[in-house]
């Protein structure tokens, strides 16, 4: 088994290693081709193909163990792929040592040199590149102004707050203008308020400087806020990739739907397909659902997704709705979330805007939750585990 799969790998990677720069790579900053990483029998990454355009802000999102950090470390050159090819800025970087890849990286724990001042920390990569003393001073001063930390240039990192340290660590990357900046959960150690502030700051720097950024996080809100494109990872594979709103509104799998945003998932079986509408039979009734892009046949299992904010409590009858008893209602500031217990035991979540003087539904009321047909989305059933 293992022997067969391993011997298949060289053959598939051959064509790319012959031609380092093929057409799609021209505008791409990073190009991963069938990159696999194995540790013994365990496959941490399985044949990943990924291309990041110049100037793009891409986020690797996924639960821990999904392979996102492994992928980042592969690009940084800290580990080597078991097979496949990595092209950075049009150059085959697969076997290139870390210090020749021309990258920048920001770590969660900042990784600032404790024995150097803020100024010396930022000057370090420039000294490594052999720049003249006067030029180093000018560049460091400029970048310190950019992050508004000129007044702490002479201090040691541990005298700064967490947010300031992370800004210094960003400045240390920006100052030598690397082709690509890798960020490994850079805001994970900061509190919520500071984190939101830093998210905007990083977005601003990205917009001003146009540097390509690859950002790793397990926080879906962070990914939605910052990215041009999200790459959702699961079990060493790419689950789905696309702009934030595509991932949110058009998830293609149950995993995507559950990982990003909250969701109501109602399993059932396809009864009929006609005129672009699928009829799904579920334990809660028959519902019309817009037909997905992929072909669907009657009799196959499927899952209906409705986002809680697309559900309303209403008395009006319609083709799409369920009835249940309100078990609990929680207030989340601008919105209220109701948990409905349906007859078969399924819980359905309904999210409504919270308005002053709202004569809302009460606990133990039996209500009807409805959605427009076009807000439903038909997903393939999750793979059996």
């Amino acid at each position: 088994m293992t022997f067969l799969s391993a011997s298949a790998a060289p053959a598939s990677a051959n064509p790319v290693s012959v031609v380092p720069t093929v057409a799609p790579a021209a505008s791409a900053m990073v190009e991963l081709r069938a990159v696999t990483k194995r540790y013994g029998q365990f496959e941490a990454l399985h044949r990943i193909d990924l291309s990041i355009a110049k100037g793009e802000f891409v986020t690797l999102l996924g639960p821990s163990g999904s392979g996102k950090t492994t992928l980042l470390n592969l690009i940084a050159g800290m580990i080597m792929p078991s097979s496949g090819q990595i092209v950075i800025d049009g150059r085959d970087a697969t076997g290139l040592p870390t210090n020749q890849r021309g990258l920048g990286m920001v770590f969660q724990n900042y990784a600032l040199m404790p024995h150097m001042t803020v100024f010396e920390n930022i000057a370090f990569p420039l000294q490594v590149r052999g720049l003249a003393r006067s030029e180093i001073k000018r560049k460091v001063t400029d970048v310190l102004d950019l992050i508004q930390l000129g007044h702490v240039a002479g201090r040691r990192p541990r005298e700064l707050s967490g947010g300031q340290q992370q800004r210094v660590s960003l400045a240390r990357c920006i100052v030598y203008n690397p082709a690509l900046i890798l960020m490994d959960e850079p805001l994970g150690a900061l509190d919520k308020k500071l984190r939101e502030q830093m998210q905007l700051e990083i977005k601003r720097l990205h917009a001003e400087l146009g540097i390509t950024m690859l950002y790793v996080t397990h926080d879906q809100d962070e990914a939605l806020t910052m990215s041009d494109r999200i790459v959702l990872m699961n079990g060493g594979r790419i689950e789905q990739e696309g702009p934030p709103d595509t991932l949110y509104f058009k998830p293609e799998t149950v995993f995507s739907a559950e990982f990003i945003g909250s969701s109501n998932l109602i399993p059932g079986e396809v009864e009929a397909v006609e005129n672009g509408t699928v009829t799904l039979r579920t334990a809660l009734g028959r519902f019309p659902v817009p037909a997905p892009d992929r072909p669907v046949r009657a009799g196959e299992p499927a899952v209906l997704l409705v986002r809680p904010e697309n559900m309303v409590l209403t008395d009006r009858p319609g083709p799409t709705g369920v009835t249940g008893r309100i078990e609990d209602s929680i207030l989340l500031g601008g919105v209220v979330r109701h948990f409905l217990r349906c007859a078969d035991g399924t819980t359905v979540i309904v999210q409504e805007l919270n308005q002053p003087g709202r004569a809302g539904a009460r606990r133990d009321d039996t209500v009807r939750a409805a959605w427009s047909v076009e807000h439903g989305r038909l997903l393939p059933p999750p793979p059996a585990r």
Partner: protein
Amino acid sequence: MTSSSLSLDHSSAHPSAQSSGATSGLGPWSAILLLAPLTLLMLGILLYPLGLTVWTSLYDGQLSVRAYGELATSTLFLKVLRNTIEIAVTGTLVSLVFGYPVALHLAAQPPRRRTACLIMVMLPFWTSILVKSFALVAVFGNQGLLNQLLGYLSGGQVNLPMMFNRVGVVLGMINFLLPFMILSILGSLLALDRRLVLAAETMGAGALRIFWKVILPLSMPGVVAGVLINVTLSIGMYITPALLGGRQDMMVANLVDFYTRQTLDWPAASATAVVLLAISGLLVAMLGRVRGGGLPGGAA
């Protein structure tokens, strides 16, 4: 097994995959370059002389175990071996009996006072053994401080011989061994969960019962390690018996010196040294097991 190793070989033989795992770690050649000088020193100045000692003990014109045979029948060697074991065991037991209360006392102090008391324990640890030997003679010798005091109190009646005999060796020994014993037991006591003591007390246990049933059993790893360290250190002692003991208190290390310089019998000296090396090797191995078993992941 076979299939997995085959598949690994394949992946590392692949052109685009580097056989070296990580480039941010140190490459094998630079590592070898950095390790070579110290390795050569240890081969030349540590393993070579040890090998030479073993060789000398086994070779006198031809390979033979005669030197060992002679040791086994030598009354001097057997007496010295018995001395060594007696002194090592006595010194270790005395330092356990006195070291345990010190460790308890230290463990019970608030951190700042503990540091202050620890300095008193550590000072002799840092003092040259020659300084301590000289000072012990000045305190416990026949005209020493203690005998002056005893003579004054008794009107010249009492003068205890406490130096250049067995007592002197043991006194010197425990002065040297105590810090090791105390620190070892202290480690265990500080790791002990104080709430257990509180719980035992809530259930009505008295101080003695708490000690026997809770504190002592839980500090056993430290006690065992301390005892092993003390025995290991004391069986190789050279300076203390030479300076504070009498003619009857010769230990194995002194015998090595005696054979080397007085009788110029190098095979006998070497054989004695090899016996000492074997015993202390055994003790070190036991210590390794105790430490390895006592601490999670300590041995690896």
